């Protein structure tokens, strides 16, 4: 037994030298002192030792245990000192997980949608290819209205269908106005935000034949111009920040009366006038009080209910945010990865 104990001691010493990590150290410790470890098993045998030798062996057991313990402590300290000295150059280039990019239009849409959802607007989606009735007639734009010309709207090569007319690529999200009134069965209140692709036959530095609009429609009893103004002030504050100011200018749209153009102070020049803006103001988009003919088209009684509506370009609005000046809008849908990766 003496020999066994000393063997364990020597053996453990050897093994300790080879230990490189604290996990290995723990494992070795358990293999020696654990319940079924070598030392524990050997020490058990003291029962079998004759009485006269028991004391000597007992002392040896304690001594060996002490010695091994000490060497464990020593090795532990050594390991700690080594690991504390281990250096990593923290300026080494990182290995990043693959990271893609969302399109700037998606970023704009989700930011805008959230702002309106916070004040009770419900987001909806309506057909991109719709009938003339929804795109024009129901919006108080009669057959000879200029917006219905071939050079303002794309038409699908298909036969017309009764009073609903031809198929068009919706030139604005306003086509969803009467669709939403129908969905609500002509019963206000309505607070809709409709964000969708729109199409118009223009293709130049500031136009793409496909673009996106967000359309707001609010209908209830007692809705008036101050609500429209309050909503835009809220939106401008949330989206552009508290420093930018808005103004309403009289304008003309067939489906609203009164109609307004909404302007916001230019961020580049702080409203003093520069190359980008019109004397300090940038046009956000059109809006107005829903025309009674439009309410009637949606089976809502214009003598009981009033409403306001607006339809603005997603791309245009996002470009007016600080920091994003894109000279040529066509780059948005050219999908050059060197552009896409910037967002």
């Amino acid at each position, binding site marked *: 037994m003496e020999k066994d104990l000393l063997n364990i001691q020597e053996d453990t010493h050897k093994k300790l030298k080879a230990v490189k990590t604290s996990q290995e150290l723990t494992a070795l410790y358990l293999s020696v002192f654990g319940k079924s470890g070598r030392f524990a098993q050997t020490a058990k045998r003291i029962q079998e030792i004759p009485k006269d030798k028991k004391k000597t062996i007992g002392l040896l057991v304690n001594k060996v245990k002490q010695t091994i313990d000490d060497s464990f402590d020593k090795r532990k300290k050594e390991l700690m000192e080594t690991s504390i000295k281990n250096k990593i150059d923290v300026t080494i280039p990182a290995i990043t997980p*693959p990271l*893609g*990019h*969302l*399109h700037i239009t*998606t970023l704009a849409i989700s930011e805008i949608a959230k702002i309106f959802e916070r004040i009770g607007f*419900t987001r909806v*989606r309506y*057909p*991109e*290819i719709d009938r003339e009735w929804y795109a024009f007639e129901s919006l108080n734009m009669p057959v*000879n209205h*200029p917006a219905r*010309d*071939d*050079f303002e709207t*794309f038409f*699908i*090569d*298909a036969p017309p269908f*009764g009073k609903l007319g031809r*198929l068009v690529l919706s030139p604005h999200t306003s086509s969803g106005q009467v669709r939403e009134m129908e*969905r609500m069965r002509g019963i206000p*209140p*309505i*607070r809709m935000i409709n964000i969708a*692709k729109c199409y118009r*036959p223009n*293709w130049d530095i500031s136009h*793409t*034949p*496909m673009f996106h609009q967000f359309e707001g429609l609010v209908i*209830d009893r007692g*809705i*008036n*111009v*101050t609500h429209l*103004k*309050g*909503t835009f002030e*809220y939106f401008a504050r949330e989206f552009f920040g508290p420093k930018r100011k808005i103004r309403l*200018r*009289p304008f*003309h749209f067939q489906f609203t*009366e*009164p*109609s*307004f*153009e909404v302007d916001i102070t230019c961020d580049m020049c702080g409203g003093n006038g520069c190359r980008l803006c*019109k*004397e300090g103001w940038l046009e956000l988009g059109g809006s107005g*009080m829903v025309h*009674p003919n439009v309410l009637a088209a949606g089976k809502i009684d214009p003598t009981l209910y*009033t409403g306001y509506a607006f339809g603005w370009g997603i791309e245009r609005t996002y470009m007016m945010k600080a920091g994003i000046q894109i000279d040529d809008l066509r780059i948005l*849908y050219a*999908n*050059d*990865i060197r552009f*896409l*990766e910037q967002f």
Partner: protein
Amino acid sequence: MNIRIPHSWLTEYIETDAKPQEIKDYLSLCGPSVERISKEGNEFVYDIEITSNRVDSASVYGIAREAAAILPRFGKKAILRPLPKGIMQNQNVSLPLSIKDPQKLCDRLLAVVLDGIVVSKSSEKITQRLKYSGIRSLNNVVDITNYIMLELGHPCHVFDYDRIKTHTLILRFAKNGETLTTLDGKVCTLTDVDVVIDDGTGQIIDLPGIMGTENSVVTEKTKRVIFFIESNNPSNIRRTSMRLSLRTYAATLNEKRPDPELAKVALEYGATLLDKETSAKLASTLIDIYPHPSKPHPINISESFIASRLGIAVSLKEIIAILQSLHFNVEVNNGKNLTVIPPSFRQFDVTIPEDIVEEVARIYGYHNLPGKLMEGKIPLPEAQKSVNFDLEEKAKTMLKFLGFTETYSYSFISKTLLEKAGLNISDHLRIANPLTEDTEYMRRSVFPSLFSLYGKNMHARENVSLFELANVYTRTHGTQLPSESLYLTLISSLSFRAFKGVLSALLEELGLSDLEVSIRSMQPFFHPHQSGQFVTKNPKENIAFFGTIHPNIAQSFLIPESLQIAEIYFETVVKLSHPTKSYNPIPMYPSIVENITVLKSGDLLFELGSILKDVSSIDAIIKDVTLLDMYNEQSLTFQIVYQHESKNLSSKDVLPIRNKIIRLLESKYQMHFKS
């Protein structure tokens, strides 16, 4: 349209102490938008946007009239001077002139002959003013017509009386294929919806309201003219001028329907000016064909109606003052109801009570209205079926974090691209009026766009993974709208396994956890032996196709044959998604994990999917089986996780199961166990 007006011309009609900058700011807030002021020499020139309903303000006088109503609201003096009165003196001579409009193509026709013209250069004042307004000076006669148009807002025209031998003007529709040569030498081919003037011999001598013709226009030799003003049908003007690309100043005014009452004012004033500038004298009776003189309709409105639309109360006194400042005739009934008659120059634009609200509101000033949010009930409508914006955003965001970049490509597809992708052109919705070849068809698949984009971008980056979430468009039968379906389409340079992993993780996160993969998809664009399909188990519905691109397609688009592609049907995802997770108690007893390596013998075809499924179903204590490693497609290492729900497992429990696994692999799949 935009018009340009020099400050000195404007102040001929309005006496004001407002500075140009103030005029710009105040007009923009309450009336026509002054977009810019430019300084040209000693002159300030306003650049003003005119909306299509306000042709009455598209002139020097029209802006002066607006300014007279608006500037006093800002504490500025503004007194409108009266319109110039023309003098039509009785003439001694009476040259023959006949004007006929049998089809009633014009609301009003006015004409007079003037004699004794001396064609020369215009005075410096007129030349300068035209120049500031963006019109080039030609000669004193033509310049006068433009000058009147700018000053009053009604286009007018002069013919050389002697070049029209018949002295007759007949309005008629053109015949299909008939041609005319404009005064600037452009030959136009007409159709039967274009209105022309015929001299009675079948010869066209004018394209009224748009542009004169070469054969009747004033020349240096002209001695006598027909001074002619007509009120055209605005939609005819627009249609013809757009189709023939003759977007003249006159056409852009005439398509907005100027006031027919103004036509006469313009004629009388013009005749006077022609006398002054060209020494012309009246030489015929005045012809004025005006079968239905305009009569603005009265509109009834109340104080409370205006308040309900504006959100604030404006006093009756102020309402009346505002409307009168805009030349509306106002009558008060019972102390609070108004009967309002618009002036003739607003008769087509102001027709309903809401129009009156707009007039009161803009002059009162939108900047004087408070802003507040809606107070009523928040509507909580049912969500639209098959639309889930949150799930869309989740899918996009997740793909971004899995290394994919989002594209937005046009919904259009060209014939060239359709052919390149081997698609049938006749299946596609066609645009009747495409802008270019690129916008001729509506796409039924996003793949062709992504194949092109991959090709475009693969030289810029070594690895490219793209996705797009967009509608595709399919013809439907009968009168239904074409169907629009939302597809999530992907293309990637990842390996097959890595790409499949992206899709599995994505679909699971979108709430589709229990999907099966079925093997063969004979989908176009996909490699027939390297593609599959994600299907839900119950009910069996197709969620996505995925796999390697078809080598023919890869070749056709010059992109790598190893590319992985997928098409996920997002509406089905939305329909079957169960995003809510369910809770299972955490296991009480530890699991035993072991690896089993086997060698495949020969070339026997097998599917890993079915091996894993078979192994998993051997015993209930097998909680998980995964393919840990595959070497040379010969040596396969499976990792098996054993776990019991109600006890600690020992090696004695596991051994028989393990032997069953090995036996299965050896007997059914002819594999050798590697101990």
